[in-house]
C-alpha cells in the first residue's frame, strides 16, 4: 500500500518544476506560443536531451528510460501547471499509440526519434464535427498493392502544422479502423495552424489528399488510447488547477481593499477553499487513473478499471479546472480579465482541455455506459 508518488518521483517532480520555472516562465510561454512553431525549440531540446522527457516511458531498446506511466503523468501535471508550450503531450500520446498498435518495425522506426526529441509525432484522430475521433470517421485509406494513400480532413491536431510524423486514423477497404503513419513532408498534405481557444497549445487542420501513408499496425480499437489520453489530460488539468489556486491565493493575501487583505473576506476565502476541495478530489482521481493506466501499461494487460476511471478523472479534473480558473479571474478582479495577466491562459486551457475528447457531461455519459446503467 503506497498510493502516493515515491521519493524518486517526488524529486523528479521538484526538479522538473524548478526547471520549468527557470527556463519557461509564463512570459517565455507567451513568446513561444506566439511564435510560428508554437513552442520553443531550444527548450524542447533541453527537455529531451537534458531531462529525457519524451523517452521516459519508452523501452530502453528504443532509447527510452523504461519507466511506467507515472513519470509521464508527472510531466503532464507539471507542464500543465506551467502551461509549458512544448510538443510533449503530442509526442507522448503518439508514442503510446505506436507502442500499443505499432508493428515492431514501426516501433523501431519511430520510437528512437521520439525518445530523443528529434521526431515530433502527433495523433490526428479528430475530424471536423467529431469529438474523440473514433466515431464518425470519414478519412479513408485506399490500398493499391503495398501502397496506401489517405484522403480526408483532420482537425485539432496538436502541433500538426510542424509535426514530423502524424498518426492518422482512417477506415480501410476492409472497413476496419487503423492508425497510419504519415510523414510531415508527404505529398498531398496541407497543414494549417488554427486560431485556437487555448493560446498555449497550437493545433492544426490537416488535409490529406491521396497522401502516402503506412499502416502503423493492424485494425485497432482506439478506445483504450482515448482512455489513456483522458488520463493524461486529467493529470495536466490537475496541474493547471493547482496553478490557478496558487495564483488566486497569492493575490488574495497580497491585495488589500477596505484596508484588509481580500483573502480575509469569506466571499474570497471560502471560494478559495472550494477550489482546494475541488483540486484535492480531482488530484486523487487523476492519481488513481494514472495508477490504473500505469498498471495496464507495465503489465501489458488492459484492466477493466481504467475504462471507468479515465472518463471519471477527466470529468472531475475538468470541473475542478474550469471552476478554479473561472474563480481565479473573479478573485483577481479587473486585472484577472486582462490579456497581460496570466489567468486567462489557464482559463482557456481549462475549457479547451474540458472540451477535448468530450465535455464532463460526455465523459459521464461514457462512464454511465460503462457502469452498465
Amino acid at each position, binding site marked *: 500500500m503506497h498510493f502516493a508518488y515515491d521519493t524518486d518521483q517526488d524529486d523528479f517532480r521538484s526538479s522538473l518544476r524548478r526547471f520549468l520555472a527557470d527556463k519557461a516562465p509564463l512570459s517565455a510561454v507567451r513568446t513561444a506560443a506566439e511564435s510560428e512553431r508554437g513552442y520553443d525549440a531550444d527548450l524542447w531540446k533541453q527537455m529531451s536531451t537534458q531531462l529525457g522527457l519524451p523517452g521516459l516511458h519508452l523501452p530502453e531498446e528504443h532509447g527510452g528510460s523504461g519507466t511506467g506511466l507515472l513519470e509521464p503523468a508527472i510531466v503532464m501535471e507539471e507542464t500543465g501547471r506551467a502551461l509549458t508550450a512544448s510538443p510533449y503531450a503530442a509526442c507522448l500520446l503518439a508514442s503510446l499509440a505506436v507502442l500499443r498498435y505499432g508493428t515492431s518495425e514501426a516501433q523501431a522506426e519511430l520510437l528512437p526519434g521520439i525518445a530523443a526529441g528529434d521526431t515530433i509525432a502527433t495523433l490526428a484522430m*479528430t475530424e471536423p*464535427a*467529431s*469529438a474523440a475521433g473514433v466515431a464518425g470517421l470519414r478519412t479513408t485509406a485506399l490500398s493499391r498493392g503495398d501502397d496506401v494513400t489517405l484522403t480526408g480532413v483532420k*482537425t*485539432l491536431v496538436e502541433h500538426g502544422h510542424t509535426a514530423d510524423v502524424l498518426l492518422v486514423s482512417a477506415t480501410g477497404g476492409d472497413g476496419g479502423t487503423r492508425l497510419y503513419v504519415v510523414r510531415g513532408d508527404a505529398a498531398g498534405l496541407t497543414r494549417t495552424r*488554427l*486560431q*485556437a*481557444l*487555448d493560446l498555449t497549445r497550437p*493545433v492544426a*487542420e490537416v488535409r490529406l489528399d491521396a497522401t502516402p501513408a503506412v499502416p502503423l499496425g493492424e485494425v485497432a480499437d482506439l478506445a483504450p488510447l482515448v482512455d489513456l489520453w483522458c488520463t493524461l489530460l486529467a493529470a495536466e488539468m490537475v496541474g493547471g488547477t493547482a496553478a490557478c489556486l496558487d495564483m488566486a491565493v497569492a*493575490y488574495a493575501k*497580497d*491585495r*488589500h*481593499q*477596505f*484596508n*484588509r487583505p*481580500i483573502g480575509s*473576506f469569506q*466571499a*474570497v476565502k471560502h471560494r478559495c477553499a472550494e477550489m482546494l476541495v475541488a483540486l484535492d478530489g480531482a488530484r486523487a482521481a487523476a492519481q488513481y487513473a494514472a495508477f490504473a493506466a500505469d498498471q495496464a501499461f507495465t503489465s501489458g494487460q488492459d484492466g477493466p478499471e481504467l475504462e471507468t476511471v479515465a472518463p471519471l478523472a477527466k470529468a472531475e479534473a475538468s470541473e475542478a479546472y474550469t471552476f478554479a480558473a*473561472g474563480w481565479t*479571474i*473573479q478573485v483577481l*478582479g*479587473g486585472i*484577472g*480579465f*486582462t*490579456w*497581460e*495577466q496570466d*489567468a*486567462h491562459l489557464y*482559463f*482557456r486551457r481549462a*475549457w*479547451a482541455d474540458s*472540451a*477535448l*475528447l*468530450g*465535455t464532463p*457531461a*460526455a465523459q459521464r455519459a461514457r462512464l454511465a455506459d460503462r457502469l452498465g446503467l
Partner: protein
Amino acid sequence: MDVDYPPQAEDFRRRVRAFLSEQLPAGWAGMGALPEKEREQFREQWRRTLAEHQMLAVSWPKEYGGAGLSLVEQVVLAEEFALAGAPQGSENDTFGIGMLGNTLIHLGTEEQKQRYLPKILSGEQRWCQGYSEPDAGSDLAGIRTSAVLDGGEWVINGQKTWTSAGHLADHIFVLARTNPDAPKHRGITFLLVPMDQPGVEVRPIRNMAGYSLFNEVFLTDARTGAGEVVGAVDDGWRTAMALLGFERGVTATTDAIRFRAELDRLFALARERGVTSDARIRDRLAWCHSRVEVMRFRGLQALTRSLSGQPPGPESAISKIIWSEYAQAYTELAMEILGAEALAPTGQATGGLLQMPEAGTENSPLSWVETFLAARAGTIYAGSSQVQRNIIGEVLLGLPKEPRLDSGPFRELTRKRG
C-alpha cells in the same frame, strides 16, 4: 394587472419605428452584419442622424437639448433600437450623455450646464470616466489620485483604470482626493478635466479576449480650473454616487430583449448541431429561456415602479447578479453545445464586445467563444458580484456590516499596494 404600455408610449413606439425604418439603410441587419471597417463611420453618421431627430439625449430635459422622454419612452426607444439592431449613440455617449450630462443637470451649476451640455450633445466633447484605480476597485472610496489647488487650478496626480472608451475621449471626469485628513469618503472631489494636455496619458488595456475596450489614464500634474468641480469640494463621493445612479437607468427593463436575441441564436445553434433531443441540453435551454423570461418580468415590474414615480434603487443589484451570472451560464451552455468545435472556433469574430455581439453577427463558433470569454468580466465590472451581494445583504435585507478597518483619516490607513 396589465402589461400593456400606455397609449402615448405606443404612439411613441410607432414614431420610433417609423424613424428607424426611414433612417436605417435598406436591408439593415445590425452592426454585426456591416463590414468591420464601415462600422465606425456608420456609427458617426448615425449619431448625427439621432441628434437631428432628438433621439440622442433621450433622458435629458428638452430645455437642455434633450428629448425629455419619460422612462417608459426611454425603454420603448431602447427596445425598438435593440430589436432593430441599431446603436443608440457612441460609446462615449454612455458617459457624456447618460452619466455626466444627467449629473450636471441635477447637480451642476447653471454655468456648467451651459458650458458642457451643448458640446456633449453635439459630439464636440467626448467624455470618459475616471473612477477606478489600481488600488481602488471594489473599494472605490480608496482612491489615491490627488488634486491640490495651485495658482487657481487643480493639479492632479494619479492613475485611473478601466476607463472605457478613454482612447476616444477628450474629457474625463475624475474622482480625486483633495483632503487626505478626512475619512476616506469625505475628502474626495469630482473634477472635470480636459485630456488634451501633456499631463494626461491614455494607454489601452487589452482584455482576455484580445480586444482593447478599456484604458489606463495616467495623470501627471494634469490641470483643470478651480471651478471645474461638480458638487462641493471634498463632497465628490455624493456626486459620484448620484452619477452611478444614472447608470442604472433603463437596463433592467431591456436586459430581456438583448438576452432574448442571444437565446434565439443559442436555440438556433443547438438545432443546427442536432443536440435538442439530449435531455440535459433541453433542460439547460429551457432554464435559459426561464431566466430571460424572469428578466422580462422583472423589467415589467421596474417599468411599473417607474411609472408610479419610483426611481431605480438598490434592487438593481439583483438585476446585475441575474444578468451577469446568466451571461456566464448561457455562454457555458454554448461551449457545451459546441464541444470540440470550441477548441478552434471558426467564423465571424465579434470585433470586441462588452456583453454580447452586435446584432447581425453570424452565429459562428468564434462569436460564441468570444462572448463566452467576455462573460467572465460581467461579474467583475460595474460592481463585482461580491459587492452586489454585500449591497443586497446590507441595504435590501438590513444585515449588519463587517467590522470596519478603514475608518479615521485616510492618510493614516496603513494601506498596501496590491
